[in-house]
Each structure stands twice: as C-alpha cells, then as structure tokens.
C-alpha cells in the first residue's frame, strides 16, 4: 500500500519547524510503523535528504523510547500499543498521516520527532524510590505481600515512561506517570515508610518542571500503551491530601 506522511521537521530547539509531505510507496502490512519510517529514511538518504530523526530503541514496546503523535493521537490509533508495536495492517492504502512530536512545555523538541523527557527522570529523583542501600535487605520472604496488592502494584509498575500521557493531556500534566510510580511503591509494605515524603516530593517537582495539573479528563488513560488506570491518580490525590493534612512528608520548615 501507499502511505502519505506529513512529518514535523525541525532542525533544533531554536529553529522554527514545519510540516513536510512525504510518500512511502510499497508499504507492507507486516511492517511496524517504525520500519515504515526506516524505509522512508533509507529513501531520503538515497536522495541526499536528511533522514527524519525519531527516538526508538528496543522496538518491543518496553523501553519507552519511541512515540509521536499520529493524526493527533499519541502512539497512533491502536489502544494499548506503543508506536513500535503498531503494525501497518491497521492502515489502508492511501491513508494520510500527520506525525508530530510529543506536545508539552516540559518536553521541549530536540529535533524533528525527538523531544527531551529528562523531566521524568527528575520526578523520580524527587522521591520515586524506596531508600534501601545495597546490602541492608532482609530475606525476600520476610515481608509478605498479598497477591492482590502485588498484582495491583505490578499493574502500575508496568509504566514505561514514554510520555504519551503528558503529550495527550490538554494540561500537559504528568499525573498519570507520577501516580503510576506512587501506586507501584505505595501498594507494597516496603513502600510505606516513605509514602508521604514521596508524593509531596514528586508533586512539588512536577510544578517546577511546568507540568500542568490534572483535571480528570482521562486522555492519558486512553492513550497509555500499558493501560495504566486513572484510579492511580485518585490514589495519588488521596495520598497528597493526607500528607498535607497530617504534615507528614512535608519539608520540616513547612510542617
């Protein structure tokens, strides 16, 4: 089949970008979306044009590196799927697709479809962990975790940090990303001692990074390739309110 692409081309963060039209003839239905972009790039290089820059690595839907907006939807039309796992059998001959980088103030464009998501790393550094230095752990079976909590924790821990939730949110909020981490750790007994500090630290950092607030629109859940649930945000809000109410977890001068 033949696919028409309109791709955002932007040389670097300071130059202005624009949409450029390309055609990819002979797209096989078995190709992944990124393999179609590979074919386009090989063709561009052949013609002496610079290939389209896009982030990708594992191409198995787990590293979280790939992703762009396809016709206004993060990771494209298939629910629960990263761009690398989206195959061309879901498109038809002659389809026109508009590809843009993630849209969010906290994710500045680096080049073409590549954005800077380092704000996510800083959110984790602000509290998204359990402080246990190597060597100090008790036996793995010393702490029992109910299967239900282990499963729900795992559901949240499946987040791959791709940023689709932020890109799709009209407020560019990182709530689903943060909430996933807070649920992952907060549902486990090991995560309890730092539960208050964690939510306070991460929410404060999100503000600094210029992520927006959550207004319960739910676009994030709809595009999440790992289908992380909105209920995690409710849990985060609960934890945040509780931490503020009790004063636990706040920096000592504010408590």
């Amino acid at each position, binding site marked *: 089949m033949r696919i028409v692409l309109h791709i955002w081309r932007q040389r670097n963060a300071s130059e202005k970008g624009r949409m450029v039209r390309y055609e990819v003839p002979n797209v096989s239905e078995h190709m992944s979306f990124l393999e179609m972009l590979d074919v386009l790039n090989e063709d561009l290089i052949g013609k002496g044009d610079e290939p389209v820059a896009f982030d990708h690595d594992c191409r198995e839907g787990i590293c979280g590196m790939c992703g762009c907006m396809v016709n206004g939807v993060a990771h494209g039309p298939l629910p629960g799927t990263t761009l690398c796992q989206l195959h061309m059998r879901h498109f038809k001959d002659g389809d026109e697709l508009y590809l843009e980088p993630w849209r969010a103030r906290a994710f500045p464009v680096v080049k073409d479809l590549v954005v800077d998501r380092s704000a996510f790393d800083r959110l984790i550094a602000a509290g998204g962990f359990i402080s246990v230095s190597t060597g100090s752990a008790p036996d*793995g079976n010393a702490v029992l975790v109910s299967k239900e909590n282990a499963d729900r924790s795992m559901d949240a821990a499946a987040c791959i940090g791709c940023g689709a939730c932020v890109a799709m949110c009209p407020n560019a909020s990182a709530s689903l990303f943060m909430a996933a981490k807070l649920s992952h750790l907060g549902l486990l007994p090991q995560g309890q001692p730092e539960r208050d500090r964690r939510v306070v630290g991460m929410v404060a950092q999100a503000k600094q990074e210029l992520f927006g607030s959550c207004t319960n629109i739910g676009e994030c859940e709809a595009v999440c390739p790992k289908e992380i649930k909105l209920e995690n945000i409710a849990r985060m809000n609960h934890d945040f309110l509780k931490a503020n109410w009790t004063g636990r977890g706040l920096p000592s001068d504010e408590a």
Partner: protein
Amino acid sequence: MELNSKSPNGPIETRWERHKFSLKLVNPANKRKHTIIVVGTGLAGGSAAATLAELGYKVKCFCFQDSPRRAHSIAAQGGINAAKNYHNDGDSVYRLFYDTVKGGDFRSRESNVYRLAQVSVNIIDQCVAQGVPFAREYSGYLDNRSFGGAQVSRTFYARGQTGQQLLLGAYQALERQIGCGGVQMFPRTEMLDLIVIDGKARGIVTRNLLTGQIESHLADAVVLGTGGYGNVYYLSTNAKGSNTTAIWRAHKRGALFANPCFTQIHPTCIPVSGDYQSKLTLMSESLRNDGRVWVPLKKDDPRPPSQIPENERDYYLERRYPSFGNLVPRDVASRNAKIVCDEGRGVGETKLAVYLDFRDAIQRLGAGLIKERYGNLFNMYERITGEDPYKAPMRIYPAIHYTMGGLWVDYNLMSTIPGLYVIGEANFSDHGANRLGASALMQGLADGYFVLPNTINDYIASNKLPAVDISHGAVKEAESQVTCVIKRLLETRGTRTVDSFHRELGKLMWDYCGMSRTAEGLKYALEQIPALREQYWRDVKVLGAGEELNQSLEKAGRVGDFFELAELMCLDALERNESCGGHFREEYQTGEGEAQRDDEHFSYVAAWEFRGVGNRPELSKEPLTFEYVHPAQRSYK
C-alpha cells in the same frame, strides 16, 4: 600475555568470603576523593553506579539513551534465578552452580560461577526491598517457575516483565543517588574511546549526542557495563542501539577480548517476515514451561496446524530429550529447530519456523491461567503477527539473543588494563559457552550490586593514582582519534547507507558464524568481511553534520566497529576446533548430532589481543580447571 585470573584456591564454598577479606578497603572519608566512571545503565551499570555512590564514591554515569531507565535489560521477560530453595525441591547454591557450569558446557570459571550462585540469594532480597513487584502466591510468599536447563523451580518473576522491574529498581536507586548528588548523570552521551595513562584506565572520551561535542572525562577507575554485541548480526533481539563500541574501543586500547565466538541463539523468537525487518522479537523462554514445540512429521505439509492430527505431529524435543523435554537449554532447542527446518519440515510462509503450541495447556489449565502467566507475551505476539495464539499455535524460530563472550576479566572483574572493570554481558566471565535462561539478570545484578563494589576498593586502595588533567597528551591523542573517525565518516559521502552495509555484514555472520559453523564457511567469511569493511569506509553515505543530533552518524561509528569485531568472532570460531554450547562446528558432533567438546585441547578461555585493523590478533589462553563439576558430555535426554 600471561593471564592471571586471581581465582582464589581452597574450598569453593568459602572462596568469595576469604577473597573479600583479603581485599583492601578504602575508608569512607577517602572514598569521597575518588571519582569512578560507569558507562551503561542496564542492570549491571545502573546497579553498580547506585551502589558505588551509596558507598561514598563520586560517580559519573553515562548512557546513550535519553534516560538511564531505557537500557536494554528492560526487555528481559522471563525471570531471574536464585538458589533460595523456597520450594523445597532440592535446590541449593551448589546445584545452581552445578547447573550453570554444566549449562555453560564447561567453558566457564568455577570460582566465578560459584560466587554468582552464592550472591543470587542476596539479589532477590535486595530487589524485594526496593519494591520490585515479584509474583506472589495467595499466601503472600514469593512465587517461582522453572526455566530451561534446570529441574527445579528457582526463577523469580514479575509477569513477563522481570527485566523491566529489576531495571526500574536499579534505576530508582540510581535516581536517588542523582537526587542527592552522589551520581552525575550524562544521558544521550556515548563513550567513543578509553583514556589510558601510564598503563592505567583513567577516563573516557565521549560525544554528546545532542550537540556533537567531544569531551573527556577523567577518573580513578572506569567501569564498562555496556552490554553485548549481538547486533553484529544486524537482526537480533537486542535493542537497535545496542552496540560494541565501548568494549571494542577499550579492546583496541589493550583490553583482551575473550571467547568472542560464544553467542547465544534464543530458540523462541518471532520469525522474520520480510527484508525491511529491523529487529527480531523474543518470546520468553518461560513459554516452554507450558507450550509444546512441534513440526509436522511430513515434509512440506501444507495443512494448517489445526488439521494435522496428533499422530502426524513430531514433538521433537520431547521425543529426543525425554527427561528435559521442551525445557532443554537454549542451544539445544535452537539447533534442533534448525535441524527440522533443514529437513524441510518447517512451517509458515518462509518454512523457517516451528510451532509452539498451547492447546494442551489451555485444555489442562484453562485459558484464564494461561492468560495470567503469559498474557502480555500473547498480546505482543498477536500485535506483531496478527494471529491469536490462544487459537492457533505460535510460530517461532531461533534468533541471536545474547553474547557470552566479552572483554576478559579476572575474578575481581578487572580487564587486562588496570583500572578498567567490565561487568554484566560486556564481560565474558560466568556463562561459558552457553547461558541458561534467567541467568543474565542474575549476573548483571550480582556484578553491579555485590561483586564490583567490593573488588574495586582494593584497586583504589592499593594504587597510587596521581591527579591527571585533560591537557595530558594521552587525552589529546584519544580525542583527536575520535574526531578523526567522525570526520572521515562525514566526509566520505559515498553511495550506500549504513544500514545496507550492516544488513550485508549481518547476513554473512548469520550464514557462516551463526547457529552452526564450518571451517570452510568461516574461511569464506574471513575473506568477505575485510573486503566489505574496506568498501564501507570508501562508500558509506552519512548525511548531516557532526555538531548536531545525527542518528546516522551514531550508527555509522558503531557499524564500523562491528566490522572489526565480526572478523575476530570468525577467527575465534575457526580456531576453536570443537563444538561447545552455542558454538557448534559441524565437523565436531557426536553420532547423535550433539555437540562434541574436546576438553583435552580446548578447555581454555581464548583471549585475543588487538594488533591493528587487518592484522592477526594474538591469542592468549587461560586454562580452565574443574575441581568440582567434572566435565562430561552434557546430556538432557
């Protein structure tokens, strides 16, 4: 070169304890004065960087991805082994040690493997404490499953995303240290050379992938946790970015490269569908717990699998290996898939695939339980192939997955360059000629959390490491070498893309240095590869500039190194006149078609010293002795 493995002697059970006691320590106040560079943020690099910072060292950590959380350890699916014996099924540290040495076909170092089995239990404890959501029983206790090459259930798992969860544990520990200033993180930064001053590793030259800036970073020791080199085959289960550049350039600076031909072919991957294919996707080996592998008895059987009756199916693994059945080790399972396909009994359009069938398991256990165990893998399969594995069997075929070879290291994980440590898949040490499933995660974390942070103190404490600065001649020389290669790649402006060369190299390697090898084929490859390499440097086409994000340029540098490595792999495979583990030489097999080792002549680690591009490298041998597990022909029958 004389290779001193520094393996301790005496009873194997206490070697690591006694060795640790003999190592010098660095007092906590002095650790702050030392900088350590860690390259790579996978399970090995990430856990090492976090742990070294916890100890008090100043750590500079580098990765080429946009975040340390993306390293390819994240893609490991099935699980991590540990000798906990929580199931009372006869497991022990000794049995894990025994299985690993045997699984590696007696080409690994006993002391290292024993230590690995010992610390495996600490890894699980550490990861649970970090909040890794391992699968649990209803009682709240940890659940286990079994994996290839073992008859006990010792594999801990977090659904089909064990690697992801373990990596997130290490990543979060790393971010905690970044947050408190213990680690300075450099994402989107690629190591392009090693700086050696007065015979010691003292730093690295890097390229900032966003700005193209070439920079030097100096330290008291350098740790490489940069993963394996499976992408030399172009198509592999590795991430697209996985590469050999860091270890290869260290090799060119004097680090010996050990057993480069020991590569692992994973038996359960989704088959190739076309020439645009960019990578291969693994289906976890854990699927072989419940799936049954078969092909039609008849050649070129055109019927769909549902119409082939039971008595016309050949469950060839169960038939040939009744005691291990579908759970034979990876090398055995892969080779058998190749044999039945070579016989013309392969399935699917390309005839290069076998069935992995869950029909019986679904009947026995119900679709619900199968979904709980493998749901994400089944979804992934359906997404890629458009077929539903609950209804029709999966089609699978072997693919390059892991490289057991890597830079030579001693018992302290130090390479032949003093101060250069190599951990995880990047070193050669623990898996011999074949790695057992769920052992890569174990080794990466063992090295990073528990081994390296102990051994590196000894080097820091016992060496005078005078301050150096970036005006040093060795730094300038390394920088100019890096700049020169980049300039050459950009100025060639030939006619062929980097990928087209890489694909051609990969095909040569798969055909002649892949699942089975012959002297004749390897000699042919050794003529073709240098010719293709020369053409590459004459005719490669890389557009754009060096001072910006330029993904073609990044690839071009990596593929340039793959060419040189490929030649070494073929040479190593040609020199090793025996079959062992993943290295199968057709000339050396038993009457029943199993690998035939030659312990009398080849019970050694082949460590190669670089002597210039196109020149024959020099071979040094580290003899392997087996005091505990006595070499025998591996039998899984």
